[in-house]
Structure formats: C-alpha cells, structure tokens
C-alpha cells in the first residue's frame, strides 16, 4: 500500500486511509464462509466511520447482496449516492417518512403493529408495488423487535396487509445478545418458533436472518438465509482474544497524522523533546488511551502522553529516537505493517474496536484507496 502524501501544504495533516480492497476481501471472506447464505454488509453510522457510500460499493463488489443501516436517513444517503441494491433499515419512529422510503425502494424492518400500520398507510398513498418488510422479532435482547406476546397479532396483521396489497413480508429477523452460546442457541430456537408461527399465519418469508459478524464466524446454525456483517467487513474482530489476522480479515482503516511542532519535554530530566500531532479528542481520539498507546513514526515508536481537544503529544520511548517536525506518524492500521491496531487503541481506552473507528470525527479527511 502506498503512503499517502500528507502533511504538505495542499493536503491535510491527518488522514484516515480506507483500503477498499481490504473491504472487498473481508466481505468475500464472509460470502465464502457462509456458503449458501447471502451477505448483508452493515453500513450504519457512516459505515462505522469509514464512509457509507464507498464502503457500500466495495461491499457489493465483494459479493454482498444487501446493505443494512439503522435509520432511514442513512438509507436515503445510499440512494442519493446512486446505490440501487437492496437496503434494509430497522430503527424507526412510528411516524417516520415511510412514503419516501417506499418510493426509494428501501426495505423496512418492522418491530410493532404501529409501524406496520403506518407503513401500510404510506403504501396506499404512494401506490405501486407493496412495501417490502422484514419483521423484527425480539428473541431475548430486550431492544427493538416485537415482543413474543404480540407475534401472533403482528403476523396476522402483516398477512392481512399482504392480501390487501400493501406490504410483502420478505424477511423475518432478530439480533443476538452474544451473551454466551447457550443464550444464542436459545434465541435461534425462538426465531425458528417465530418463523413457524408466521408460516401458520400464511406468511412466506424468504430471508430469515439472525447472525452478525460474531455468530457468522462461530455459530454456523445461525447463518440461515442471510448474515449481517458489520465489524468484520471493516477487518476488525468482534471476538475477545482473537485478532483480525487469525480470522483472515484485513483492517480497512489506517489513521495517520503529522508531527507539526516540537516542544520541550514535559519531563525535565529527560532530554528528548515531545512532538505535537494535530489530532485530539475533538477528532474522536479517546483521551483515556494516553500513556498506554504508541504511534509509529519513520524513526520508531512514540508514546502518546496526552490527548487534548485538538492535538495529542508524543514522546520518544527510547534513547536515540527523536521527534522530528514533519514526520508522519501512524496511530493505527494493520498490525502486519508494524503499527498499532484499532484493537490496541480499544484496549488502551477500555473499550471495543467498534467505538475506536466509529467515533472518528468528520474533521479527519477520509482517503479511499481502490
């Protein structure tokens, strides 16, 4: 991979480079792993901070047949970017703009009767083909999704709306707690019960889906007709104590910046000087990692000693390495290239790799490598 030309007058000091070949590789890995199941790449939250539209295109190139988002605004963003493939959105207000969603050909994840009614009314107003629905069941996570006590009523109403031409139930899905294998198995069992109940109501859902990245990797029985791959598509592992490389995944994001100034060390006994890097917590770099993480420059590794609103401070860790103004530093990327990973930052900040990449701010330029 080429090093982008950053730190010059024409380019920003800080760049998150997104390797779209890595995304294609990662998605293709799940396509082959899940064999007969389709792959939905989850691109919510601006594709976990990577950039929704470019990631969506790379995922489709890698063999994904579906895209998943949380809310309709995210789905419209994909359509506005000219992406025409199937998109599912599953987090709604009951009075959301379902008419626009139907016109944009977005599949709606429906969690309750109120949403189903709003959707049917919107379809009647819009006309044309029935609105495409995936019914979301709560099989134990306690978030959205229909509570088991209303499954029967929801399925009957959905079937009634199918017969009147307002909706078509394409899928039934749920979301795992990943609490442990027994809980996940129990949730899978509840989903099978739900699908059977739906069939008795006359529904014929083609797509049953439950697994996200962790279950797609570990629990083949949960793959069903489709797997929803989020974190894995970005080359990061959702599993404790298992890194990207062990899963044959390639981290897609590399965050680099520049030492733009050199200052006296905060430690008077230490002759080395500290470097100032213009990335701070306002850019999404977690200050909790200070003192516990290194960046890599051309001459070696530097300890991050402080993280402020708009900059961080680095110091050499060994004699003989000096911070140099203009030196490029890598905060995280693919450990195969000898740099820290998003996993390392997550450990240093007591969080998960998802939060490290997703919260990287808009003020950091994204550069896409085809």
């Amino acid at each position, binding site marked *: 991979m080429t090093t982008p030309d950053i730190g010059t*007058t024409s380019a920003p*000091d800080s760049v998150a480079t997104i390797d779209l070949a890595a995304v294609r590789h990662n998605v293709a890995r799940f396509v082959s792993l899940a064999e007969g199941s389709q792959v939905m790449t989850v691109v*919510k*939250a*601006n594709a*976990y*901070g990577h950039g929704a539209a470019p990631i969506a295109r790379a995922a489709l190139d890698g063999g994904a047949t579906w895209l998943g988002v*949380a*809310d*309709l*605004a995210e789905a419209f963003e994909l359509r506005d970017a000219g992406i025409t493939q199937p998109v599912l959105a599953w*987090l*709604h*207000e*009951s009075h*959301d*703009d379902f008419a626009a969603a139907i016109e944009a050909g977005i599949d709606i994840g429906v*969690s*309750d009767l*109120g949403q189903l009614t709003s959707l049917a009314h919107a379809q009647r107003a819009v006309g044309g083909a029935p609105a495409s629905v995936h019914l979301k069941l*709560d099989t*134990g*996570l*306690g*978030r*959205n999704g229909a*509570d088991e006590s209303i499954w029967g009523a929801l399925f009957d109403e959905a079937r009634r709306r199918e017969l009147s031409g307002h909706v078509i139930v394409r899928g039934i899905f749920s979301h795992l*707690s*990943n*609490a442990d294998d027994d*809980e996940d198995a129990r949730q899978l069992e509840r989903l099978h019960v739900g699908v059977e109940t739906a069939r008795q109501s006359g529904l014929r859902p083609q797509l049953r889906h439950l697994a996200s990245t962790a279950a797609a990797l570990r629990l083949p029985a949960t793959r069903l007709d489709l797997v929803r791959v989020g974190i894995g598509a970005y080359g990061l592992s959702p599993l404790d104590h298992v890194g990207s490389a062990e899963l044959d995944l390639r981290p897609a994001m590399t965050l680099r910046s520049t030492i*733009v*100034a050199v*200052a006296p060390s905060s430690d008077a006994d230490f002759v080395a000087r500290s470097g*100032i890097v*213009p990335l*701070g*917590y*306002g*850019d*999404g770099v977690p*200050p*909790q990692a200070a003192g516990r993480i290194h960046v890599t420059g051309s001459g070696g590794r530097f300890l991050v000693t402080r993280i*402020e*609103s*708009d*900059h961080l401070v680095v110091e050499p860790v060994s004699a003989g390495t000096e911070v140099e*103004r203009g030196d490029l530093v890598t905060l995280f990327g693919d450990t195969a290239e000898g740099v820290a990973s998003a996993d390392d930052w997550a450990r240093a900040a*007591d*969080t*998960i790799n*998802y*939060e490290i990449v*997703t*919260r990287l*701010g*808009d*003020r950091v330029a994204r550069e896409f490598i085809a």
Partner: protein
Amino acid sequence: MSPLDSTIDPTGLGRDAAIDLGVFRANVSILAARAVGGPLVIDMTADAYGHGLVRLAHAAVESGVDILSVRDQGDARMIADAGIGIDVRCWHTSRFSIPPAGSGIAAFGFGMELTDGAPAGIVPVMTVSAPVLSVKRVPEGHGVSYGFVYRTRKETTLALVPLGYADGIPRSATGSGRMAINGRQYPIAGRIAMDQVVLDVGDAPVVPGDRAIAFGPGLEGEPTAADWAECSGSTAGEILARIGRRVPRRYIDREVAR
C-alpha cells in the same frame, strides 16, 4: 447568519442537539466581566467543542470576545469566509507554534476539570435528546442488550432511545449513565450500543415520542455533560466535542434572565 430553528429536525429519528446562543452569550458576558485588563480569549477548538464553529464565532463577536483560539488556518478561514471580523489565533500555523494551555470551556458551561467548577452563573449551552421510539413491558430477570450484563430486578418498562456511541454517548458509561424523561432520571439498562440505549423506566407512564434528555443544563432534572464525564472517566469537553454527525445541531436563543 441563518435563522434559528424552532422545531426539531424530523430526519435522523429526531435526535437533537439544541444549542442555546442566548446562554452562550450570557456565559461570555460573565467571563468578560472577570477578564478585566486583558483580552477575552475563547477556546473554539474541536468545532467549538461540538457546538459548531461558525455559529458560535458569530455569537462570540456579538458578545464582546476579543480573540478566538482555533487549531489551524482551515478553522481561521471558515471564520473569515463567514464574514466574521475577529482576531483568530491558530496554534498550528506555518510559523510553527505549539498549542496553548487550555483556556477552559466556561463559555460552553463547564469548568476545566471535574474538580474545578465553572464560574458562578455559567450554564451549559448544549442539550442532547432523542424521542423514545418504543416501550416494552418485561418480567423480572429479563436480560437487556449485549452480553446480558443487565437483568431487570422486577417487572418493568424498557424504553428504547436512538442515541448510541456513534452519536457520542460514551460506551464506558455502561452501568452508570442516565437519561431523563419528563424531569426524572432513569438508568441505562445494559450495554450502550452503537445506535441506541435502553432505559429502565420502572412503572413510569413513558410512551413513544416522550423525549429522553441525555444531558443539558441540569436545571430540570436532567444530567449534565459533567455527569457523563464523571461516569465515563472523561471530561465535559470530551463529551461535548464528540457528539456525532447523526445528531443535528439546532440553534435556539432563549431569553436569559440573570
């Protein structure tokens, strides 16, 4: 300058960061009265701590700020391009300087550190909220969210709120973060997820559409950004600066009586 926004943006699930320019100006006035003899410098790094650089720069000029402190020429250019005539200091310029020691975020309503309170009369400027999307009655012992680190202690109502760590709610506040509905605070049940949290509202008559306030001035029972900082090992500045792109900023201007 574009007009104020009296209604919440309905796209993006009604997530909202209301920024009260009247409160900001009142805070600046308090700081100006204390800055006798020297220029009043306001730290506007990190997109004015998530409040929006240009809108806050306008308000700062109106209320007598002398100097705005920003990161770089890009920030300075945004202020100049908006036609705002004010002295802007960049620490990172071609002349190669180092960033100043933090001048504090009292203008935004908070002291420098958790232990260092804001000057008297200072009020937080930003209120982050979202509507309850759904409620669900569940029995005792019901696991909630990833890993089931939370189980309900009795039969209760769970309320789903579309604010997660992608929106800036720190995941490390799992187990301690709270949000307010109708003036009462409720604990977050289980892990804070990327797009949502679940509140355990007990037997309160919460219905979809009720607004859940993540933080605000703290004057009507809601938590403040400092409360979130305390329960996530962070600072109020970080909480404010890291509110995400899916939360539209909405500018209001309430009359502030002092």
